């Protein structure tokens, strides 16, 4: 612009800022960069737009516009077409609480609230203190009292009557919180200097990981009692819970081992050189770093096990998916499977998506500051 922009090699900074060319900013440029930047992307964009146009209106129509509101009897629903949300309102309590005695269903409801509150409290890193374990023990005791009853004037409810969301939450939350420390020990065991411990850990992990969860559940429910002396009866729910814990521990151990392997040798050496013993070095130096690295695969396992609790249906326990299926077997409501599966699908999704979101936040928090 002006003659004195450059004085020798010294830039005086007198070129005024200009706006970028108009074809590189704004919505048109965005469209061109993201949707139509090559001919095949343009083709894909058009194809996808057409598919969405075909799929979304009928879906919305079924979900909302032609849907029958709460209270429409099933006969009317069948004639009208469209979603029949009466199914959800009518069967809500059965799907959520299963065969728990109807008048006592406030108890599983409180159970759900307690478990969710415990999990939410544990999400806050400020609460990661030893007393949190006590809170958990107290919370789970309360859950046990509420569900079984038999004390404090609560009627006794056999656990074969439990079902729905509390069962899903208990199997997964109790299962994962017991499996997690077990998996840490297994992962450390697999990398132990002591051959016996290493062999036991490797054998356990490879054995459990090598069979399908479903077969482990079958074994727990059918084969395990064969090994017990007659007269001794192990609770079916407890057996399923143990099978879950064993399976989840093996999987998570491998996720954590991945994290352990990513820790540089220098960290172990620095911990050793300072005179820390094995458990101090692991607890203070190695595991905090290894677990932070293992968050994505761990959460992957958490999410998949939360959903896999639905497999308990094969040994006759009615979790959320099981109660939804059972609700569909009511002759009056047969055939409304889309509504049923959509409803529980949304419930599962809310839980899994929250886990995913929280893990992303945790990863960000833990990475802050200590980037290498």
């Amino acid at each position: 612009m002006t003659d004195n922009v450059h004085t020798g090699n010294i830039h005086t900074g007198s070129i005024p800022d200009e706006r970028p060319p108009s074809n590189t900013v704004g919505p048109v440029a965005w469209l061109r960069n993201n949707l139509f930047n090559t001919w095949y992307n343009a083709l894909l964009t058009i194809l996808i737009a057409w598919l969405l146009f075909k799929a979304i209106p009928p879906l919305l129509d079924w979900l909302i516009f032609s849907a029958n509101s709460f209270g429409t009897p099933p006969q009317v629903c069948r004639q009208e077409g469209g979603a029949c949300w009466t199914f959800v309102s009518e069967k809500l309590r059965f799907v959520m609480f299963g065969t728990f005695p109807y008048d006592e269903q406030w108890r599983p409801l409180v159970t759900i609230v307690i478990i969710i509150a415990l999990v939410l409290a544990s999400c806050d890193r400020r609460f990661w203190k030893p007393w949190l374990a006590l809170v958990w023990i107290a919370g789970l005791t309360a859950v046990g009292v509420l569900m079984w009853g038999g004390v404090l004037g609560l009627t006794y409810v056999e656990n074969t009557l439990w079902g729905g969301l509390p069962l899903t939450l208990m199997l997964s939350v109790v299962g994962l919180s017991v499996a997690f420390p077990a998996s840490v020990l297994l992962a450390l065991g697999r990398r132990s200097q002591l051959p016996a411990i290493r062999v036991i850990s490797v054998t356990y992990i490879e054995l459990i990981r090598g069979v399908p969860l479903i077969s482990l559940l079958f074994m727990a429910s059918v084969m395990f009692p064969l090994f017990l002396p007659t007269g001794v009866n192990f609770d079916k729910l407890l057996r399923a819970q143990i099978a879950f814990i064993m399976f989840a521990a093996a999987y998570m151990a491998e996720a954590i081992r991945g994290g352990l392997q990513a820790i540089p040798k220098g960290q172990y050496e620095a911990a050793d050189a300072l005179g820390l013993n094995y458990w101090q070095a692991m607890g203070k130096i190695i595991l905090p770093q290894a677990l932070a690295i293992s968050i994505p695969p761990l959460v992957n396992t958490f999410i998949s096990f939360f959903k896999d609790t639905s497999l308990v249906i094969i040994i006759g326990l009615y979790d959320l998916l099981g109660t939804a299926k059972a609700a569909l077997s009511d002759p009056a409501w047969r055939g409304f499977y889309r509504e049923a599966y959509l409803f529980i699908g949304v419930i599962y999704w809310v839980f899994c998506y929250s886990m995913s979101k929280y893990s992303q936040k945790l990863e960000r928090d833990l990475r802050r500051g200590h980037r290498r």
Partner: protein
Amino acid sequence: MTMAQTAGAARTFPQGEPIIQCQGVHKWYGEFHVLKNIDLSVAKGERIVICGPSGSGKSTMIRCLNRLEEHQKGSIIVDGIELTGNLKNIELVRREVGMVFQHFNLFPHLTVLENCTLAPIWVRKKPKAEAEEMAMRYLKRVRIAEQAHKYPGQLSGGQQQRVAIARSLCMSPKVMLFDEPTSALDPEMVKEVLDVMIGLAEDGMTMLCVTHEMGFAKSVADRVIFMDRGEIVEQNTPNEFFNHPQSDRTKLFLSQILNH
């Protein structure tokens, strides 16, 4: 032989009460003989620089002194405790022997202050307040106190190495081992770390440094040890070592590092 050479060769180390005694130490990595018949005695307050070509076993040797590496033959006695497979004894030795690594090895998930207080709190069982007070004193000494609440990843290499030195000092060690402490640093940061090490030497700390900083060796070492192919080839006062090297291998090594 000249008089100087004879005088140098005849000189015996150490002159005080020994804190480290190695006798006939051998080590193998599989078939490879890394350390061959190492005899070394270190007196309290002695400052030793160990040099030699890469692969000569100098790092391995000092890593044997706190048993980060295991020796297979001979004996190593540190602060009156023999290093064997006994884990309790190893831990006892390690609390008295500080180590500074080439790559700092600070704990990236802890702040600078936490890096320094961790071992005093958990190994020495010091109250937290006391450990923090001591950590701040040492961080001041390495001139980095104002960074106490940062994470290691936010510091430069030279600053990280100074924190690593402070972290070791917080255990009040009787001996400090330095394993090429300046080799991973950008050239402009070498001096700040060496200055801290010189300060330590002046305060009478027993030090063994594996380093290529010959200026440091000349100015602070009581003794320079030259290693090659797993053996201690020659050891002498810096003056004798640099001015009147005895063996051809030492002469060759010195000509390679000093003439460029």
